């Protein structure tokens, strides 16, 4: 479904991605990990059109994504969230979701006032558990609630591929728990790529993991295979021993 071939990105001489190959089949839940600066976010940026690769190809469902504008990629069915969640604070939760759900409507039809809540919005509200807060303005939400709203907006878009950039960063334990459940639910009927640092979260929810290091794919496989790999241990031990994959209790 998603296929990256030999993707290179260079920022002012710095090789952010250096020949990445990545294939994600339909229906998979893929985790993307790696130390800081490994190129995880850049990879997401390349897929969603925010960063144009210096070389290489990105194909999604038979379409070439390189050079397409961001909103056109979304229209092909690729949605994403951001590390620091960006929701529209002046709009209510339901308005945020409704906006996300309405992009396939022609522009002129938007000039009509919204009446009620569409099916996609209702579903997103239910899944993210934000029903109670539906009419509150997004500006008053807590950090965790914002992340859920962002995931909800992603769901309301009804994309074929979801890209989540560190969905549990900065969340409390409880919130992580709920996000994890949400993720499992979503993964049941979507193709998902998750960028995540949190190892505990990874161990609990990941099936397939791709490890990036210095702009290259280091290893790819199941959680067990990856954490057993000596190269991964070395990369992680050299940097952040507390988080290291090899440091199993």
């Amino acid at each position: 479904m998603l296929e990256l071939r030999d993707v290179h990105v260079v920022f002012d001489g710095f090789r952010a991605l250096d020949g990445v190959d990545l294939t994600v089949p339909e229906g998979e839940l893929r985790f993307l990990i790696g130390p800081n600066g490994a190129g995880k976010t850049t990879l997401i940026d390349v897929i969603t059109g925010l960063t144009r690769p210096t070389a290489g190809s990105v194909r999604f469902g038979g379409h070439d994504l390189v050079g397409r504008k961001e909103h056109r990629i979304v229209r092909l069915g690729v949605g994403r969230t951001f590390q620091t969640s960006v929701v529209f604070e002046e709009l209510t939760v339901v308005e945020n979701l409704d906006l996300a759900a309405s992009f396939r409507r022609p522009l002129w039809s938007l000039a009509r006032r919204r009446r009620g809540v569409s099916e996609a919005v209702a579903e997103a509200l239910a899944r993210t558990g934000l029903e109670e807060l539906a009419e509150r303005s997004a500006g008053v939400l807590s950090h965790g609630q914002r992340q859920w709203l962002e995931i909800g907006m992603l769901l309301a878009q009804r994309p074929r591929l979801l890209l989540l950039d560190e969905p549990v960063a900065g969340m409390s334990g409880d919130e992580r728990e709920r996000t994890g459940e949400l993720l499992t639910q979503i993964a049941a009927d979507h193709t998902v790529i998750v960028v995540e640092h949190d190892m505990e979260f990874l161990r609990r929810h990941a099936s397939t993991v791709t490890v990036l290091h210095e702009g290259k794919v280091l290893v790819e496989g199941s959680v067990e295979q990856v954490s057993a790999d000596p190269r991964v241990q070395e990369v992680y031990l050299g940097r952040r021993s507390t988080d290291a994959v090899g440091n199993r209790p």
Partner: protein
Amino acid sequence: MIRRHLPFATVAVIALVAAPLLLEPFRLGLLAKYLCYAIVALGIGLAWGQGGMLTLGQGVFFGLGGYSMAMYLKLAEGGGLPDFMVWSGVEELPALWVPFANPVFALGMAVLGPVALALVLGTLVFRQRVRGAYFAILTQALAAAMVILLVGQQGLTGGTNGMTNFFELFGQDLAEDSTQRGLYLVVAGVLGVLYLATRQLVQSRYGRLLVAVRDGEDRVRFLGYDPALVKTVTFAASAGMAGLAGALFVPVVGIISPALLGVVPSLELVVAVAVGGRHALAGAVLGAVVMGYAKTALSEQFAGGWLYLQGALFILVMTLAPKGVVGLAGRLRRARTT
């Protein structure tokens, strides 16, 4: 439903019934002029307040509308060439002018001309993601360039003088008080209709989208919308309003000149919108009327003081009440209820 429309209805009654009855013709004419500015302000409120596009060149669109109307009025007089062409040494009516003898074409151009220019400019600028300050500066430069262009083409546009000395509109003598009262009603009516339409737009999904584009243009892209398109369309709508306002302004005030569409008048209207309250459409309208009135009243009292006052008001509004009078009113109301 009734409660929702009550404020608007009250204002509409005052504007459409009370004002023409109570005001003497000269003052009614002034009010009509402020209402023309209010139409432009409404467009600025939409583009800037809702859409975050700080346009400092709204005078250009106002001017295009005004010039279209003025060209028609000049030709409608009959009697050959317009006066300024005679003293500019133009001997034959320029081809550009010929279709403006038709009132439908002239009125159409007054609105569609600005819309077309805004579409072109918006497409060029927004597609390249030029925004914020850059956009503000470019629109400002557009206003400056437009003035120079109009002034330079004296035979075609009347140069610095602009065009004046109009006698009749659709067969009505413009000097008559009754014509002026009628014009006032037309202006007030147009403003009312546009206000309702804009309010409808702001409360629709499109309005929500516009606010989203204002607050997070890049994020909107990842919701599958093209912000450039949204902005261009909104910018064009505000340009159309300014054009219509210009077309109404000319018979009301009796003159159009490059001085009306330069950087300073464009900025003054933005100030008015800021003072009234940029996030509320009513604030934009209110700001334009109040500032227009303040300028007339204060310059009658003390000339140089107006500049101080305008400058000071501006600094105060920006630092103390960035949401303008409407924002202040809202804050007061909340303070009272809590």
